């Protein structure tokens, strides 16, 4: 557990902090994520890329839950309603581990596609919220998300070969 923490905590905390913009909230997310992974270690695929993917996906999911809870909660003293992510976080997805390649792929996207990725993934906005904010049809937002991911995937595949 300690070795796992030493290897992934900076990435996990960086992601949570970027999304939440609050060190204490990011700490909560990272702590609960590592604990949930530790408690589920006999049920998840623990090969390196898949474990990293699972853990960072849980961080992302929990940060989204915290963001949405924050938006929905009038009483700011209430604890976020963190959901059990085990039900729908994929456990067998192996991620690309090259951070620079991911940054390059991301910056290579057309601006309109990069914007929806930023709002969806890093700001935790739903497709409906993004469509409203950008004054776009919902279908256009969905298409841009899919196109963006396809382009990133192709770019990463190209850099891997």
């Amino acid at each position, binding site marked *: *557990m*300690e070795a*796992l*923490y030493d290897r992934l*905590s*900076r*990435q*996990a*905390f*960086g*992601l949570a902090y970027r999304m939440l913009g609050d060190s204490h909230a990011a*700490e909560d997310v*990272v*702590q609960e994520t*590592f*604990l949930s992974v*530790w408690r589920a270690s*006999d*049920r998840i695929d*623990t*090969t*390196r890329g898949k*474990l990293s*993917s699972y853990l*960072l*996906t849980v*961080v*992302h999911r929990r940060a989204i839950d915290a963001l949405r809870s924050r938006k929905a909660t009038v009483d700011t003293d209430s604890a976020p309603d963190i*959901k059990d992510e085990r039900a*729908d976080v*994929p456990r067998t*997805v192996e*991620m*690309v581990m*090259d*951070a620079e390649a*991911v*940054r390059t792929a*991301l910056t290579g996207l057309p601006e309109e596609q990069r914007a929806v*990725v930023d709002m*969806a*993934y*890093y700001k*935790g906005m*739903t*497709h*409906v919220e*993004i469509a409203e904010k950008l004054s776009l049809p919902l*279908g256009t937002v*969905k*298409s*841009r*998300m*899919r*196109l963006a*991911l*396809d382009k*990133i*995937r192709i770019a*990463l595949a190209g850099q891997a070969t």
Partner: protein
Amino acid sequence: MNCDEIEELAGAYALGALPDDERAAVSAHLETCDKHPEMAGLLATAASLALAVDEVEPPAALKSRLMGIVEAEAPPQRTVPARARRGFGETVRGWFASPRLGYGLASAMAVLVVGLLAWNVSLQGGGSDQQVVNVSGNAAGRVIYLSDEKLAVMDVHNLSPLPEGKVYEVWGFYDSANIASPLGLLQVTTAGTGTGTMAIGDGLNQIAVTIEDAPGAVSPTLPPVLTAKFS
């Protein structure tokens, strides 16, 4: 939700941009439908986006707090009565003293790719004292013992199914006092694959697996169905 709707929502789902109800509906569909092979690639791509964020060192207190919780939740090591300890220890040593038994089982063991091994090895960066030992007994598999991390990972195959209510329990023996300490349960799939990750104290010399009537046995029921000895 039908397949066309899933396709339409695939990008938003992978990015985490669906409201909870839609997310749950897509997840439920994917659990039972194999017509969306591209989804794994989308999810992997989305997961990779986490790497584009700059790493940030978390507060030191977070690690301390986390390790404290983990330690508190780790299964306690319980000492079994002297009579049970002696008998069990002698039996285990007897298993390893039988070359016929050992050679027979060795011939049946397959080379296993152990996911947990990969994980643990990857975590060590080559610097940890690590032993990989094949198990002996009624199944094939191995135990990886990371002494620096005080962690053992067991991965075995072809375990016999147990009657309802019974469990496979893992025990550790230590150099210090030949104490059998319960290390936890082996989680076994319907296909007979058992895995477990166990916190280990210093000086582990053997691991054994027994069949118990229920979780939480304080002494092992003989004979063990699996054993693994460490140098």
